[in-house]
């Protein structure tokens, strides 16, 4: 049986030797998941803000759906996107299946609901504090949303982090729409799945540790930004 120690040693070796394959895989993982996070923020934040400051019939249903969509299984998202992007699907003519773009689309769909639901909660709490002042200032809804989004920026960083974490760690969606093609759509999680299926558990675990290290680094950076912001009472 492979020991964790063996995997840690292998992880160090992979990183220190700067294996070109590893760099490519890590690079694509970051490119895909960061892009997906960016798009998910573009979609999810305005949606979260809009729902946060709005009251309309059926709002509770919308909230329930938003929260439920946070639990979308990646495989289901992968399948839905596959069916659209497949050559025989409605968007097949775009030729996007088995490309990083397809992976970004799938991950965006996966994490946009997370961004929307979590930001809605944060922005609604903040709006409670600001609402009366905003009404006194006669802000229109768009001005209110913009102000809320900006003032919640450091809390929303955590939301972005949650989305990125989910994206970079999921395998179910990207393996279906990306195909785990070497040098084209292979990312860290699909590599881990592949090495596991080859029985190379130490290598699989080592890549997992690289993934974990990246996640830790990103988290630490965000934590530092939040700490700085808290000192300025911006959180």
């Amino acid at each position, binding site marked *: 049986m492979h020991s964790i120690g063996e995997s840690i040693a292998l992880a160090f070796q992979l990183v220190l030797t700067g294996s070109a394959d590893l760099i490519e895989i890590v690079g694509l993982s970051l*490119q895909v998941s960061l*892009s997906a996070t*960016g*798009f998910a923020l573009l979609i999810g934040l305005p949606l979260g803000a809009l729902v946060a400051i709005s009251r309309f019939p059926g709002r509770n249903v919308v909230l329930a759906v938003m929260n439920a969509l946070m639990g979308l299984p990646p495989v289901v998202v992968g399948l839905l996107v596959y069916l659209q992007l*497949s050559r025989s699907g409605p968007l097949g003519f775009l030729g996007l*299946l088995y490309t*990083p773009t397809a992976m970004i689309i799938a991950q965006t769909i996966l994490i946009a609901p997370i961004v929307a639901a979590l930001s809605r909660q944060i922005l609604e709490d903040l709006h409670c504090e600001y609402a009366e002042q905003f009404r006194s200032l006669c802000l229109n809804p768009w001005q209110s949303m913009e102000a809320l989004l900006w003032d919640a*920026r450091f809390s929303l960083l955590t939301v972005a982090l949650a989305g990125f974490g989910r994206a970079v760690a999921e395998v179910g969606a990207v393996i279906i729409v990306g195909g785990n093609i*070497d040098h084209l759509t292979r990312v860290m999680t699909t590599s881990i799945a592949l090495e596991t299926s080859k029985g190379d558990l130490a290598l699989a675990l080592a890549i997992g540790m690289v993934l974990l290290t990246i996640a830790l680094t990103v988290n630490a950076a965000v934590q530092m930004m939040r700490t700085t912001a808290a000192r300025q009472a911006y959180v």
Partner: protein
Amino acid sequence: MFRKILGAAAIAVAANSPVFAEDGAIIVQSTTSTANSGLYDHILPIFEGKTGIKANVVAVGTGQAIRNAQNCDGDVLLVHAKPAEEKFVADGYGTGRTDLMYNDFIIVGPAEDPAGVTGMTDAQAALKKIAGEGALFASRGDDSGTHKKEVSLWKDAGVDPDAGSGQWYRETGSGMGATLNAGIGMGAYVMTDRATWISFANKQDYEIAVEGDEDLFNQYGVIPVNPDKCPSVNVEAANAFSGWLLSPEGQAAIAEYKVDGQQLFFPNAPSN
């Protein structure tokens, strides 16, 4: 703030320029054994160096590979389930099927051999014995080429393993590697292709229990996807790829691939 996010997104998109649309690239819908054993890592650079065509391999179970190809999501199909392949061609999805190479299936089991099948050369008899002893058996259960073969062997042996499903008969619904990992984890017998087994790195105390039965023959075939059904197919490149695989040069490249000194695939394309 919106401007900043938009800017970041624009950069992200710009960095993600499409890689797919290069001419001379094909998608190979493939069974996993050929990919996981490292065969493609050996032969594709030779092919790409010669033709400049990039072959992108999507490695999934044979059943899923065929379905993906039927959805026109591939240019070439390379799998190992002859009846299903012939149906694929008969239904018009492929231009023609050609034998490419073979190896064989084996049944691997734990060293203590709970069903006492080690050394047997009759696959059906061995399966019967495993079922009779109620020894654990891990099946792919995923409609792959290996799974189809296993099902046909059970049928020939006159055993209905589904009766023991969830008890001694464990269907993982996963790929070959995952099934081996699971089977080894629970001490179950597993039927696998020899190539995957030889290159598999997590064997622990497992050994080959059953081999050498003619019925365990494992034939791989190659099929270019039919452009009549799938206009998006890169016909020239697809034909170039399958033609090269079947050519003396391609066949030699397959034959020379070895893991631990053992040849994994034996070319048997019909000579022209």
